């Protein structure tokens, strides 16, 4: 699997927020086998240098960094944030978020497409956080996106895949674009389900960070994603309405 020409063997992208401590974050990253971690940019407040120590921790992992534009509500904010991220993290990768609704954190898909166009033209590798809407996805690809990241459910909601039909349609429509389910997963079986649909990867944060044991949950997700991927490649059987005996009927002893 490759994102913008970068080959990756792990199909889990891990967020770095909301962990109980920096040490647990570092352990969870290791346990997840992730090769990409997401980060953000926030105002650097005063002398405590929180940002500097966080950056030291991330740099020591040696992993690829995917900065986001979380919290941006306008095209201008998102584009400016992307430029700051490109300089700060020395990467063309940007997880593009343009949020419209604060209750659901639903993307403003109109602003998203516009910001994606501006950033793709400016040489960014854009990872758009979008809905499962096929027409919007088509516009994003037209704008230059070569990865799509539809939500499973609203960020942090742990609801899993809200619209399996829509996600399936997206997979069928874009066989050659890497598709990542981003957001809304709660338990490893949700991630397995996404991978069984043929999705290329999963991006997680809260489900790991807010688990009772984030390190153990990180490993559980890693294994679940691997299981789902293997199942997809193994071509699952089709469901049937009626039972079909698995044990051979022929040769059954007559006993009654």
């Amino acid at each position: 699997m490759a994102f913008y020409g970068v080959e990756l063997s792990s199909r889990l992208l891990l967020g770095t927020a909301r962990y109980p401590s920096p040490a647990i974050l570092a352990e969870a990253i290791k346990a997840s086998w992730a090769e990409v971690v997401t980060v953000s940019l926030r105002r650097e407040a005063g002398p405590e240098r929180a940002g500097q120590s966080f950056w030291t921790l991330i740099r020591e992992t040696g992993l690829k960094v995917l900065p986001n534009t979380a919290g941006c509500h306008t095209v201008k904010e998102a584009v400016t944030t992307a430029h700051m991220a490109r300089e700060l993290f020395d990467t063309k990768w940007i997880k593009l978020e343009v949020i419209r609704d604060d209750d659901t954190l639903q993307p403003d898909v109109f602003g998203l497409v516009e910001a994606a166009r501006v950033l793709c033209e400016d040489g960014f590798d854009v990872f758009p956080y979008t809905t499962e809407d096929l027409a919007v996805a088509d516009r994003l690809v037209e704008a230059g996106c070569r990865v799509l990241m539809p939500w499973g459910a609203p960020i942090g909601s742990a609801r899993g895949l809200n619209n399996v039909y829509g996600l399936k349609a997206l997979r069928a429509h874009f066989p050659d674009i890497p598709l990542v389910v981003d957001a809304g997963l709660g338990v490893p079986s949700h991630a397995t389900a996404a991978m069984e649909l043929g999705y290329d990867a999963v991006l997680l944060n809260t489900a790991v960070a807010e688990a009772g044991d984030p390190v153990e949950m990180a490993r559980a997700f890693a294994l679940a994603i691997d299981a789902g991927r293997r199942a997809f490649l193994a071509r699952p059987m089709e469901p049937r309405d009626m039972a079909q005996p698995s044990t051979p009927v022929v040769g059954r002893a007559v006993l009654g």
Partner: protein
Amino acid sequence: MRIFVNGEQREIEAGTLAVALDGLGFTGRKIATAVNGRFVPATQRPATRLADGDKVEIVAPMQGG
């Protein structure tokens, strides 16, 4: 001269963004900057003169999902 740094009002000597950042203690720190909503690359900080009322944003790497 009065400017806003990350939303807080600050009094600084008139000058460039680079000088202001030094004065505010950001020397050597991993940050990115914007003035009045426009990104200012590190290389342009010495040539970016601040004006009264400018809004300076200074961001650093932070946890994110």
